[in-house]
């Protein structure tokens, strides 16, 4: 998905180019013959009887290179790289590395995924990984540092944790900080100094929201208090997500704060009240009974319905 302004003329030209290009680019996606040697790797080599339609169809190295040269639909880029998972094309690496800074988020993600599965050419000194690390700290544009953070998250390498954690709390750009928080989520880590908790108090709501999302996705998050503090956030979106996160974590310590958010006299946004009441139901602490009971008469129909359900859990 891209956002820009084009003229109708350019649209028509793009259309023609797209159709012409597509004829070449899509031709290889029909099912290959059952005896295609590309289908006889891995488990298929063990059980040759598996039908061709069930098996991975590998991309060729030439095709991998071609999709990095521009004018290819994002969906085709994604397909070729995903089907090139185990294609050990060393010469493809420098070209695919350029896609780490593509304008399409999913293209960036999949190119990082493909690169991280290389045994050579990516993680050596001076190679792609170290270049990305350098970009995170020295990139001259917000976008470059942001995309570098995303790539480090998708590379899933432990050494990426410290630099993205630092970027999550110290980069001057909220775009970079948000990407770094998302990278921590991908790395399944709250940061060496619980930087994820620090990011929960970031000045920009989008960073705080990304951090809240990460807290319920990673296996271990140690700073419940940092989430509880967000129940009084200025942003209703943040309050809503904080309530939901505390419900996911069954945080009994948060019941008092959530009861406050369930009250229309204290919380005017019905989306936040819905989230708070849903969380109280999930936590299941009987001290919330009266508040949830009262919410069954809330002026908002969706709050009412969630309260009726939450009441059954108390």
């Amino acid at each position, binding site marked *: *998905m*891209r956002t*820009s302004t*084009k003229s*109708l003329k350019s649209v028509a030209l*793009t*259309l*023609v*180019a*797209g159709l012409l290009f*597509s*004829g070449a680019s*899509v031709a290889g996606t*029909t099912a290959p013959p059952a005896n295609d040697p590309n289908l006889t*790797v*891995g*488990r298929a080599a063990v*059980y040759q009887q*598996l039908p061709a*339609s*069930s098996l991975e169809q590998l991309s*060729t*190295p*030439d095709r991998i290179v071609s999709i990095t040269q521009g004018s290819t639909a994002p*969906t*085709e880029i*994604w*397909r070729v790289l*995903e089907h090139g998972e185990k*294609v*050990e*094309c*060393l010469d493809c*690496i*420098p070209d695919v590395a350029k896609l780490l800074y593509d304008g399409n988020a*999913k293209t960036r993600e999949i190119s990082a995924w493909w690169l991280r599965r290389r*045994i*050579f*050419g990516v*993680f*050596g000194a001076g190679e792609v990984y170290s270049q990305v690390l350098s970009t995170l700290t020295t990139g001259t544009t917000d976008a470059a540092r942001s995309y570098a953070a995303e790539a480090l998250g*998708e*590379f899933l*390498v*432990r*050494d990426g944790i410290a630099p993205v954690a630092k970027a999550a709390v110290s980069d001057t750009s909220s775009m970079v900080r948000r990407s770094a928080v998302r990278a921590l989520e991908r790395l*399944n*880590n709250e940061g060496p100094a619980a930087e994820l908790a620090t990011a929960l108090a970031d000045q920009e709501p989008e960073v705080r929201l990304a951090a809240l999302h990460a807290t319920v*996705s990673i*296996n271990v998050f140690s700073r419940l208090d940092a989430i509880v503090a967000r129940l009084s956030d200025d942003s209703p979106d943040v309050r809503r*997500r904080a309530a*939901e996160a505390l419900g996911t974590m069954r945080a009994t310590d948060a019941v008092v704060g959530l009861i406050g958010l369930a009250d229309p006299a204290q919380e005017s946004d*019905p*989306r936040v009240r819905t989230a708070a009441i849903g969380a109280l*139901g999930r936590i299941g602490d009987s001290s919330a009974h009266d508040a949830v009971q009262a919410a069954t008469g809330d002026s908002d*129909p*969706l709050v009412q*319905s*969630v309260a009726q359900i*939450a009441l059954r859990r108390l």
Partner: protein
Amino acid sequence: MSRPFNPRSLVSPLLLGMLAAAFVPGCATKGPDVGQAAAPDGFDEIVYAVRQNTVGSGKTVTIDVADGMGQVMDYGRYVPGARLEVRNLTNGDVRNLIEGDRFAKADIEGMDLSFDAKKVVFAMKLDDNDNYHVYTANLKQGTDAKNPYGVRQLTSGMQDDLSPIWLANGNIAFITNQNYTQMGTRADEYNHGRRVTQVGTISEVGGDADRKLCSQNLSHVFNLFRMKSGQIGYSRWEHLENVNDSKLFAMNPDCTKMVALAGQHGNKQVNSLVQVTEALDKNVFVAVGTDRERTIQAGTLLQIDARSAVDDSNHDEERATFDVITPSVPTGGDSSPVGRYRTPHMLPDGRLLVSWADGYVNDVNELSQTPPDFGIYIYDAKTRRNQLVFNDKDTWELYAQPVATSVEPPPLDSVQTTQDSTIPLVIGSIDVRQTSLFTVHQNTVGGAQFADGTPMDQALGSAVKVRIIEGFSSEAAPNVTMFGLTMAEGAAILGEAPVLPDGSWRANVPPYIPMHLQAVDEYELAIRSQTTWIQGMPGEDRVCGGCHEDRSAANHPSAQQQPIAATQIQNFMQPIADRIEYPWQMTQGMGTLGTNSLELQSILDAKCVQCHDGTKNGNDAQETYSVTMTDRDTGKKTTYKLSRLDLSSTPVTVTYDRRTATYPASYVSIFYPNALSMEMGQGATITGSVPPAWGIPSDARHSLMIEKLNVTSAIDGTKNAWKLGDAFSDSTITKDGYVGVKGGTRTMHPENVGITLTRDERKALIRAFDMGGQFYSRQNTGFQAYGADPVAAATPPTTSTDPMYPTP
């Protein structure tokens, strides 16, 4: 993609011109911007969801075609502006069930009409900062001005609940990406960070208060569909190494008895079977058949007859037949202008209410900034024609159903009432030798003691154990780039259950988690590795007839009324730390080696590196080959040198600062030759001769290193898997320098040079190869369990009062 806003330009005249020449089935012409046909017989109204593909106003709009729909199992698409419409086909009246500011930014994913045709259940995301949750709405307007259609929210929280369907007795099934089990975020290894979706159930009355989570697959479960039997039907993404496709499954509403329905055998003709509706006959289905990606989740229509030949009220997945009923529509990702179908729904007269879009319905739309235009049609398989019902060119109309009552399926008795994961799942077989793998599917096995082409039923007669392997994704082995030079998932052995004299076996295993089985012979080698994941609920008892028994034949114990294993159950309810893993090398102090596990490099260090290191290989000097990478922009060449067989822990030059992605020379020496075989000889510039495939992931039986080591029988120590004194399977010497296994003929190695490998050490190597040849496991990555697991952690029960599950 974006372009100036002009609704009339959403369908390009150029594109239409091309389509007119190529379009084949049915309704070839475009109707007006809002087209509508006369009401079909049997119903006056239809209900459907309207989804947007275009956002913006003024000079710039964003056209979003594939985001969140790039693959058939994707669910992350959010474009605001959805409506839930009931349209009267007689008079054209339309009412939107989700009117008002509260729903102005909503998107809808999935919808199902109740059996009494009075309400719908659907998944809705209210805004960009929300998740998809399950809602209901009445079709008729009520008296509450604030909530005229009685919209109720049944689920909430920080997870997506999607694709709901009605079940008997006012229950609802849906898919959810909620984290549960100690693995936390379960992500398909092949689908990156997108959390996989599993099945959950609620009641209409209780919503989340009755929330129940079903056992997990390693990959996505998606596109639920109703079944006349009362079961929940669903598509399931299957990913075991390079098996990658979507097949059909079913289970009971209490989450038990997951069974294969269709697509596991036979020529299903497509990669992915999705969006299913059951036909007028029970166990006959119509599905969308398509490729995994790039078709905007649309494709051809297939009829699937999965009826059992013995009892047509039951299904038989291994004899299911597949017939394409829209033959001109592509079955794959072909670039075709014909058009594609989505979300079929069977009508009472046998025709299909479908969504259909003309044109390419793939990334051509992305490039041309012209979204496919899904409208509602009736497809008649007899005439192969589409009849227009309703189409708005500016939006997608999906999930259409006629507003008509339907027969509520029978409620199925629930045998499963707990989500306590300390209560084991019981799995087993009546007789592993009962199999249709050869008689129906002609599957054979070769290698070691089996000549090539040995029938599978004959080979399974040699099974002495069943190996139960837990599968997990990279989220359970944090901070690793991949599990190794293999497509295989993370793996741990829960246990090996002995096959008793009558062929039976039975074991207590942890519920919820995905597993697969291997029948194992007396040499510790897998005979057959199950190519699908199995799983079950706490307290469930899942005993099969055999090892892929005939689905239409009775399965009886071979010797007596009850299998011997009925009273000899193994207990494999082990905490994660005690499960058997084979980390290749413990890395930088990360993690702790379990008491039942072995580090493979330590075996190699003690028993192998004396003769196989960086300078020597047996009696010879070490040989090397190299691969070279060329940067086409700079011309810079980087060369990596590899040894023929260096079993030392010396790091190869693949690390950054010696701290990341470090692989020891042993791992690279053993598995890189096989990895290179996947590149089709086009990618890398290779100098020297690539060694033989010492290690083949998931195939110890054909791995030349295992053959070189050889192994004796656990039953008769005088027997070897590979006959002593015979030539190796690959002792080839070619003109271009390739040399197979050296060292004369088969021996027991390294015993022939005075070094003894214990049986446990030899077994560890065989098992590690058969499990997939992973470098990483949980134990060498510092795995910590997910902290917000809503089901209790699995720990071994000390005593059991349940007569069904006696304390072992």
